[in-house]
């Protein structure tokens, strides 16, 4: 293979920009580029943050004085529910996703994320879902059961309106987008890095994001499952959480907090990752304890899953169980302290210089340490039983989230804004903005600890004046406005920065990471050619590396067949493995996002037939995604520059899409495990058991296993046929026929169940079968996709991926189906045993 002579930097730039860039005007809707979408995520998140902030102001206005008549409880309940929902789901999570999407490829030395169209689809789902949630406020039907939506208050009898449905459907919509972002982030970190960047040389920020994304993969499915179950209860009367029919309000609390506690660390870790990047730059020294920090964040990730019950210390769980959760909650302070002291040691052993980002890092230190200390207090069971659900908790959570996320994000904003804009601030508005935010925040929330200890419960819309809370609330309200002025000043500073900032040449802060080894503002393709990492990626030299890369001296410093190319590496060693070919800008993600919004809206208004049609249309649109991308012929290794070659992604055993399926199935399996847990939990704990009627084995139930087993075998057969170079379409068609057979058997098994609205036992059994039904249906889609891709010429013996994915899906469906049926068959015995013991 011949290589064309290297282009001049300018020509190379123009050639790359033409294929990587997003067009103007309406073509912006077709953007799939990580720089564009990362900025969009962050900007949109900031808008939702501002809306959430306005709600907070309304809350503080109402609470400023006793007996206030500014709003009544109907409005107030919507205000605080929406404030929490917006800040958690529409601000914090998307903000960290945006940061990751913008930064990761640049820090890892890649040109984009692994699945740019998925990034775009995730963005549209987030935007449309967010608009649905916020728009509900305009109609006065916003969610009003609090951001953790405790049942039975959020169930049909007590919240009959559409309010709770908006939360359940809207948030689930946004969560699914977050889950897909998590899968994409994981795969991008593991596969798309600069050659030579072994895992042990990866920047800490990427480690933080890897751990965060894995936490999302395992943390979000329980909530998504819980929301689906609750929506099934509200819409169709399946009583998973109704204590009068064998459900249990506590099941919701378990599922919610199983997500909800890790969520706090999901928010904190990326912010800590930003700190671990920023602090060494201003300490002018490498971070202390690289390996210890990675171990600490892994420990933090696991421990944070082991303390969900610390939100449930007052629900009447045995002291022994509380002790486990209490100890785990206290232990989580240790990996946090490891990081704090690693940062302090970095500064102590460095030559610290104080710049604006460090001012905000200081804000983080002081505020977050207080939040951590009150967190340890709340981990102590007897104290929590006093402080729980009081304003002490409100103060604590704001110290943790504002300290652990907002201050680091402000530091990150001042650190990376010059990267985004190519300008540096000239006005020093950032300093008064900091002091207003810092002082306003502490005045608002510090004394709020005392308000809580003096007995003020959360979520009361007003209070009489004889409890001694008046001056405390007035102080919080007035200071809240100081805080708001600080944020207004920050927003103004950002606008001024864009407008009047002074241009700078390169690497403003003298940072040692790859994100600065590129022109700033960054170009759409990030690196004109890809770097080689020979030492640690946190000891790179952007000042010399940047011009070399721009001159095309790295890998892939050329344009070939108008394809968007970046390098895929071996997961651990970082050796070059393949050339990843990424999709060009396309409107498909926008179209799919709009169609998915149709599904959500139709379900919201209970037009289920229309929802089904929209769902089918959404899947049909995914087939178009599939049609657009791929290689039509086997081509073998191709040149990547520097005289080396690598095969394209379709021809290697472990491309990004394969790992995305592995991780996606891990998330899916977690959801299934949560469903099994729910079924067993209700059996063991829920009131109103035993059920009036017990689901026995039916013929159809026994037939489920052979149907799923045969479908899996057919997928294996199809894959084998293709691997030996023959046409697998017959086998795929047989597989699809078996999928349809499985769907029929499962439908009949579902129909043979006793009325699932009668008791939670029947409802959970129906949910298990429904899960398998859904997976068989998606198996049909996988088969169809493989068939079409073969037809379009994207599949050969050397390019077998669609068939492998099809097989993985069917195997997963078989295993979960087996487990589900086994539990259904075991249930009568379990119910009998428990009754005998009672």
């Amino acid at each position, binding site marked *: 293979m011949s290589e064309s002579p290297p282009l001049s930097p300018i020509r190379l730039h123009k050639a790359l920009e033409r294929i990587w860039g997003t067009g103007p005007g309406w073509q912006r809707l077709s953007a799939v580029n990580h720089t564009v979408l990362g900025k969009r995520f962050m900007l949109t998140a900031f808008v939702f943050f501002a809306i959430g902030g306005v709600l907070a102001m309304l809350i503080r206005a109402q609470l400023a004085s006793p007996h206030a008549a500014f709003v009544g409880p109907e409005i107030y309940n919507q205000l605080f529910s929406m404030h929490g929902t917006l800040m958690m789901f529409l601000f914090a999570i998307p903000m960290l996703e945006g940061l990751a999407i913008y930064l990761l490829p640049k820090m890892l030395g890649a040109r984009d994320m692994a699945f740019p169209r998925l990034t775009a689809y995730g963005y549209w789902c987030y935007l449309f879902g967010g608009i649905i949630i916020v728009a509900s406020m305009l109609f006065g039907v916003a969610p009003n*059961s609090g951001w953790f939506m*405790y049942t039975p*208050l959020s169930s049909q009898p*007590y919240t009959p309106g559409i309010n709770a449905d908006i939360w359940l459907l809207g948030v689930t919509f946004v969560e699914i987008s977050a889950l897909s972002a998590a899968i994409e982030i994981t795969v991008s970190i593991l596969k798309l890095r600069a050659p030579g960047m072994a895992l042990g040389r990866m920047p800490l920020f990427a480690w933080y994001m890897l751990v965060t994304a894995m936490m999302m993969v395992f943390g979000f499915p329980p909530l998504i499952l819980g929301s689906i179950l609750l929506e099934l209860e509200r819409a169709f009367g399946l009583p998973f959480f109704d*204590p*009068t029919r064998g459900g*249990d309000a506590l099941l919701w609390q378990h599922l919610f907090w199983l997500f909800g506690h890790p969520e706090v660390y999901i928010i904190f870790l990326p912010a800590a990752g930003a700190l671990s990047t920023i602090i060494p730059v201003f300490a002018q020294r490498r971070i202390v*304890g690289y390996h*210890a920090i990675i171990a*600490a964040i892994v420990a933090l990730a696991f421990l944070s899953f082991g303390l969900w019950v610390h939100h449930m210390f*007052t*629900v*009447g769980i045995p*002291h022994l169980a*509380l002790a486990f959760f*209490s*100890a785990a909650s*206290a*232990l989580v*302070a*240790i990996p946090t*302290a*490891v*990081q*704090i*002291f*690693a940062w*302090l*040691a970095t*500064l*102590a*052993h460095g030559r*610290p210089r*104080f710049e604006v980002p460090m001012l905000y890092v200081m804000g983080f*230190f*002081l505020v977050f340490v*207080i939040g951590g*200390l009150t967190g*340890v*207090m709340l981990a*102590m*069971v*007897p*104290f*929590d*039983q*006093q402080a*729980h*659900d009081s304003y002490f908790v409100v103060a604590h959570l704001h110290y943790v989230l504002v300290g652990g996320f907002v201050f680091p994000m402000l530091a990150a904003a001042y650190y990376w804004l010059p990267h985004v804009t190519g300008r540096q601030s000239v006005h020093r508005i950032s300093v008064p903005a900091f002091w207003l935010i810092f002082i306003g925040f502490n005045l608002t929330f510090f004394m709020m600890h*005392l308000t809580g200890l*003096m*007995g003020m*419960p959360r*979520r*009361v*819309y*007003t209070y009489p004046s004889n*409890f*001694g809370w008046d001056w405390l609330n007035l102080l919080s309200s007035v200071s809240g406005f100081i805080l708001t002025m600080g944020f207004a000043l920050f927003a103004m500073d950002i606008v001024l920065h864009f407008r009047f900032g002074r241009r700078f040449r390169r690497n403003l802060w003298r940072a040692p990471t790859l994100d600065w080894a590129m022109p700033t503002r960054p170009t759409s393709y990030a690196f004109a050619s890809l770097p080689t990492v020979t030492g640690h990626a946190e000891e790179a030299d952007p000042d010399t590396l940047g011009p070399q890369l721009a001159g095309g001296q790295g890998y892939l410093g050329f344009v070939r067949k108008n394809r968007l190319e970046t390098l895929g590496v071996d997961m651990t060693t970082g050796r070059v493995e393949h050339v990843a070919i990424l999709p060009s800008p396309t409107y498909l993600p926008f179209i799919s996002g709009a169609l998915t919004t149709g599904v959500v809206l139709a379900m919201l208004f209970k037009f289920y037939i229309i929802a089904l049609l929209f769902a089918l249309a959404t899947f049909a649109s995914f087939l178009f995604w599939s049609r657009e991308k791929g290689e039509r012929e086997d081509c073998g290794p191709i040149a990547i520059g520097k005289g080396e070659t690598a095969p394209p992604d379709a021809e290697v055993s472990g491309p990004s899409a394969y790992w995305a399926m592995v991780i996606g199935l891990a998330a899916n399996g977690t959801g299934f495990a949560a469903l099994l847990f729910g079924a067993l939990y209700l059996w063991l704990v*829920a009131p109103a058991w035993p059920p009036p009627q017990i689901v026995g084995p039916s013929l159809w139930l026994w037939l489920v296993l052979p149907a799923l087993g045969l479908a899996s075998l057919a997928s294996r057969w199809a894959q084998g046929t293709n691997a030996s170079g023959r046409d697998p379409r017959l086998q795929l068609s047989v597989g699809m026929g078996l999928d349809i057979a499985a769907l029929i058997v499962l439908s009949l098994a579902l129909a043979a169940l006793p009325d699932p609205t009668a008791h939670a036992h029947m409802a959970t059994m129906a949910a298990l079968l429904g899960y398998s039904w859904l997976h068989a249906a998606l198996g049909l889609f996988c088969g169809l996709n493989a068939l079409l891709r073969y037809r379009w010429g994207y599949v050969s013996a050397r390019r077998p991926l669609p068939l492998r994915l099809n097989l993985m899906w069917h195997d997963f469906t078989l295993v979960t189906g087996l487990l589900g049926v086994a539990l259904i068959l075991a249930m009568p015995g379990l119910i009998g045993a428990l009754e005998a013991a009672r």
Partner: protein
Amino acid sequence: MKRARILPPLALASASLSACAGPLSTLDPAGPSADAVANLWWVMFWASVLLFLLVGGLWALVWLRPGFGRSLAPMRWVVLGGLVMPGVLLTLLVGFALYIGERLLPHALADPPPRVSAHGIMWQWQFSYPDIAGAATTPTLHIPAGAPVDIVVTSGDVVHSFWVPRLAGKIDAIPGHRNVIRIQADRPGTYEGVCAEFCGDGHTTMRFRVEAHAPQDYRQAVLEAAP
């Protein structure tokens, strides 16, 4: 003050915060359970103040006195500050808190304390007295002073939470479940209670009053109480 005999220096500090008193204040305990928790709080509070000053001080020193920390090897910082210090402190604290928690549980006693039922519905509490024949259901909780009482907390609709801050921590009223909390008022008097778990539009006003009577008057007071 009762705390004074247990932890004098802490009591001094808490006395200086006399603003902490109030009808719903956990820092103005009127029974052994709330008292134990208030003690735990003051211990944690002062420990936290010291820790905050330590971390804040270190932060200030690395800036104001560059190089002061170089004598301590980098990983020493991490091991001492990140592992040893919190490890020791948290072990002590968890042990202390579990010891306190264990004592507050409604253990079976040789002489079982009287039981009162607290039933939460949207949006009021109904108290009934299974131990006292002929007692009506009351909106005010009547208890004997100076001895423990077990409150059996249930709900008729959504999740509520029974909380009398000056007497003890809270316990949730969960539909279909039956939770017990042991409370005690040291002397006769009136105490305030609230619903602590958000339960809908009437959550704010779901307050109640606790009247503690001298033991010899208790039975009569319950029988005469307004329904």
